[in-house]
Structures are given as structure tokens and as C-alpha cells.
């Protein structure tokens, strides 16, 4: 890892479509960074954004309550979507900003649909040294062709639907395509020679054990991306000259709150609920939710 990511001021962007676990990750990270018991190697110096909203989320997370979904700006304009955590390393030598440009994820849907970045976002990207990209474990990332179910619907077709004029709906595009688009656009703005680091975070990793179909087992985050988001996987591998990636499976809640709440509430240290899985880390499984952040920033290398 070059020292360029350990300069005195680094900025990391966290991006992802709606309902991909950004808020839950953020609040769990915030808890760890604020917690003396967690003994984090990073500490918060300042937070920009709606701290009341953050505190509310934190209270819910600590109590093992489902976090209220971060509503889009159009539905709740009073809440600031952008959150910035200003951090410092334990030795005080490096300052880091972790920017969540939009916790709701609506901004990224808008980027995909409108094909435009605001100047403010463009400046964020130009100044950033890496990315955390979020996707949700139990979402469908691969498009399903109609021909795959043709035999099931044969004989049940209605006449009217197929006659309607076509209007392209960009929201229907697969999430893996949108993520590749985000990464392509960000790569185009990163013009220095050093490959950037991108951490892919699969949220709600606790749900992955139920995803195995036809006897196939998905045991690692890399296997998940390869099998269930293959378009994204190819992009990450084929562009290894321009970006370095790692895939993390993270359960920021620690389990299914409907089934496991009692067990999860018994942890005297809530940060011990968190599960972080990554084949390329020294410990393939840990509770340290700062791992992807520290890897992208090259801290501790």
C-alpha cells in the first residue's frame, strides 16, 4: 500500500443503492469508534450532519430494534442525508473523512437515471481516495430472462400487456449493472496512476446461509459476488490494473432481529454482535467493523 492513502487528510466515500445496509453499517461503525471498550484504532474527532438522527439510529441499534428505513429526501426533506465522520488514527498522525453522501441511497438511483452528477458530488469523488460499495445479501442482482420461465407462463398469457408502447424504466435495471456503472464513472475521475481501493460490503451477511440453491453453498463473500453478482465480479477482476478490491460480508446487527433478538440482546458489549467476514484479512471472521475502512485507507499496513 502506497503512502498516498496515509497522507494527513484522506477521504473515503460510502455509496450504495437504497436498502443496502448503509445506515446500519454506519451506526455500528459509529458505535465502535465511540466505544472505549471497543478499543478502536480510529477515533471520531467530529461529525457533520444530522447528529440527532444518528443518535436515534444508534439507540435503536443498541436495543436490537430494526432501524427505521432512511427515507428519501422527497419523503422527509427535513433530515440531512449527508453524514461526514472526521476521524483520527490512534497515533494522531492521520486524519480521515468518511463521507456518506446520501444515506438513503436515492442519490445513486438518480445518478443512474438522470446520467448526471452535481458539481458537489463530482468534487467529492475527485477528492476521495477509495470507496466502500454496499449491496444487500438477499436481493436479486442478476436479471431473469422471460425465456427462463416461458414454459411456466405458456397458455396463461394475456393479450394486452405486450401491446403497450415501450417506455424504458431505468429503475428496473439490475443492481449489479448500476454498481458497475457507479464504479466506472468513479474510475474515470480518478486519474492518478495508483490503483484505488474498493471494498465491497455485502450487508446482512447472516442471511446468506439461507441463499444456497440447488445444493450450492456460498461460504465466502468472494463466492457470493462470483455467483450472485457475476457482472460486478467480472468488472472488479478485469479492472485489477485500475482498482484493487476486497469483498466483505458484514452483519452489523449480528443476526435476524425477528428470530435472534433475545440472543443478541444478551451481549454485554453490543459490538460483539457484529460479524465481519473476509477471506483476505488475517482473521477471516471478526467483530471489527472498521476493517474495510482501514483496508481502503491503508491504515496499519
Amino acid at each position: 500500500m502506497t503512502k498516498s492513502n496515509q497522507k494527513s487528510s484522506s477521504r473515503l466515500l460510502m455509496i450504495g443503492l437504497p436498502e443496502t445496509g448503509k445506515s446500519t453499517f454506519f451506526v455500528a461503525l459509529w458505535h465502535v469508534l465511540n466505544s472505549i471498550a471497543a478499543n478502536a484504532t480510529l477515533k471520531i474527532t467530529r461529525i457533520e450532519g444530522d447528529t440527532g438522527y444518528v443518535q436515534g439510529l444508534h439507540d435503536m441499534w443498541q436495543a436490537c430494534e430494526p432501524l427505521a428505513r432512511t427515507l428519501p429526501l422527497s419523503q422527509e426533506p427535513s433530515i440531512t442525508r449527508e453524514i461526514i465522520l472526521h476521524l483520527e488514527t490512534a497515533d494522531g498522525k492521520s486524519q480521515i473523512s468518511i463521507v456518506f453522501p446520501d444515506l438513503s441511497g436515492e442519490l445513486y438511483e438518480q445518478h443512474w437515471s438522470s446520467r448526471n452528477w452535481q458539481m458537489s458530488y463530482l468534487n467529492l469523488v475527485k477528492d476521495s481516495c477509495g470507496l466502500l460499495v454496499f449491496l444487500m445479501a438477499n436481493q436479486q442482482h442478476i436479471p431473469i430472462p422471460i425465456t427462463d420461465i416461458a414454459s411456466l407462463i405458456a397458455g396463461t398469457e394475456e393479450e394486452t400487456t405486450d401491446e403497450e408502447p415501450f417506455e424504458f424504466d431505468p429503475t428496473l435495471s439490475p443492481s449489479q449493472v448500476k454498481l458497475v456503472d457507479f464504479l466506472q464513472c468513479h474510475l474515470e475521475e480518478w486519474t492518478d496512476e495508483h490503483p484505488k481501493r474498493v471494498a465491497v460490503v455485502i450487508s446482512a451477511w447472516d442471511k446468506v446461509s439461507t441463499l444456497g440453491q440447488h445444493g450450492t453453498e456460498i461460504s465466502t463473500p468472494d463466492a457470493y459476488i462470483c455467483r450472485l453478482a457475476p457482472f460486478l465480479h467480472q468488472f472488479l477482476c478485469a479492472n485489477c490494473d485500475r482498482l484493487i478490491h476486497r469483498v466483505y460480508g458484514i452483519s452489523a446487527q449480528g443476526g435476524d432481529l425477528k428470530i435472534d433478538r433475545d440472543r443478541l440482546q444478551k451481549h454485554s458489549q453490543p459490538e460483539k454482535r457484529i460479524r465481519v467476514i473476509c477471506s483476505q484479512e488475517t482473521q477471516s471472521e471478526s467483530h471489527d467493523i472498521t476493517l474495510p475502512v482501514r483496508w481502503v485507507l491503508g491504515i496499519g499496513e
Partner: protein
Amino acid sequence: MTTENNRILSANCEQPSCNISRDGKCIENHETPLVNCPFYLQVSSPSSQVEANTHQAGRGLPLDSGRDLKGEPVHGIDAEAILKKSLTRLIVIAGSPESGKTTLVASLYEQFQQGEFATYMFRSSQTLVGFERRCQLSRINSERTYPDTPRTKLEDTLRYLHLEICKQGINNTPTSLLFADINGERFEALQRYANEAAKVIPFRRADHFVLLLDSEKLLDLNRRHQEKSKAIMLLRRLNEANILGKENYVHILFSKWDTVQSETDKIRQEECREYKKVVQREFQQGFADRFGRLEFAEIAARPNQGRPFGLDTLLTYWVQNTPYQERQWHTPIKRPTDLKDCWQFFASEDMK
């Protein structure tokens, strides 16, 4: 007129590649008044800046718009930039309306949604939105019962779909594929106006010229002769007008071949197979020595049942083969990257 010139020369355009403010020419070929161009911004006075902002806002864009993102099929200038920057195969796909041209390209892109295809990985695309637009009607979330592909619009300027692929391994050179996105009706006009069309469509720069014959029509005794003769006539016109020749690889594809395979009337099926052999023989007799290569293949880009076939072989062939590897010139040839001038380039080469 002077006032109009001043207005044109002080005009601006949201498209960075448009030179309207320098030479007064709109890249979208709109003539005055330029307000018909959706990208036109008049900025000759402070009040015009307000108009520009209003125009921008009217398109749903925020007023501090920082960067337009690529995604739709690219124009010639952007296609030229791709040609200059990377190893590229330019593929022109021709065929009668609804013969499957767009479905072929869309289906190739769709294969990469499932994983690596034909041992290649997807690396990038400057036209992701263009591909998505062409694939949406074939997916279940379109809520349709039959897959379909939107008709390619007849536009003033030619556009290209872009796909960049590579093999595994950091040392493997990526290859860009540029597909000329041509409306079927434009090809109908090619037979009458081949010379004029050649100035718009970069045939002679094409690594592969692909001609689709619709197998559904070949199955139909009432339509098969017309389908064959139109294709032969087009190829003859392009060759006789010196638009396609030894510097091109030509690929004749029998599209929708699954309809032949699944034909329940076995006599009709066998008739079609025999007719295909006749068609192939006619093409070979007429053109085998006129092009760099003449190949044939049966494909089904989106069969009614089962997986597509023929696409993996096609993709591998397109990537690994180009007429430029075989051209023998007494001086090293510089491959034309300027698509507008490739006509002049080849005309001058023929004079040597």
C-alpha cells in the same frame, strides 16, 4: 445574417464534442434556429445565461450540473476515441427489419450478466444504458409474457454500442467491440443508395460485416426467396460499389435458427435445411473470392426456449480475427480511426 452568425458563434452546447461555438456547426446536424437541438444553450448575454440555466433545469438537471455521465450509444467522435485508445473490433450488422440485429447485440451483453462468456470477462462499457434499454423487454420484471427488443430508431447520426472484454490475467490485452447500431429501414435504403450510405456507415473500416438472414422467413415458402435475394442484392451492390471488398470479413448468419430446429412439420423443416444449403452455395459462388473471408453460421440469440446458441463461437471469432492481420502492404498500414474519413482513406489506398 450577421446577427444570426453572432448568435450561433456565441452559442454553447452541453455536448463537449460539439464545435458550434467555433465553426457554427451543430454536431446533431440541426440547422438554425438551433433551439430545435435539445443540447443548445445560448449564452451570448447575461440574460441568455438565465435561459441556459432554465433550459438545463427544464431537462430535470440540477443547476450546478457537474458532469454528464456516459451510457447511451456513442456518436462517431466518441467511437473514434475508442478506436484510438484501445484494440477495437468494429462490427457492422446488417439485415432486414426484425431479422434480429439488435437482439443479437443485446443478447451478447446479456450473457455477461450471468458470468464469464466464451472465456471472456466483461471489463467495461460506455453504453450500459443503451444495452439496458435494449434488454429490458426480455426480462421478467418488464411484466411481459413474451420477450421482445425495441426497434432501433431511425436517427440522423450513426451511433455505436460499446463492449470491452478481456481474458483472465493481468497481461491480457482488453478488446473493445463497437457495434454500429443501424435501423433496419436504413438498410432497405442501402440497396438503392449504396454510395451515399457508405459515407455514413463505415463499412470499409469494419473488421466484420455481418449479414443476417431471418430463418423464420426461410421457413416460409412465400417469403424465403425474397429474404435470400435481398441479402444477395445488398452484398452485390456494396461490393460492386467498392464499399465492401477484400479488406472485409463477411459473416452470413442464419438468425432465429431455433425456429427451424423446433419446427414440428418435419417436411417443412427439411425443406428449410436444404434451402439454407442452396443459399450458402449461392453466396459462395457469388462472393467467395470477393471478400477477405466469407463465413456462415446458425444462431439463436434469444430462442423461445432454452439458452442462446452460436453466440460464443461468434464472439470468439470476432475478437480473434481481423482482416488487418492479413493485409499485405508494401508500407505499414495505419488503421483509420477517423470514421468519417475512412471512405477517403480507402479510396486513396486503392489508388496505390
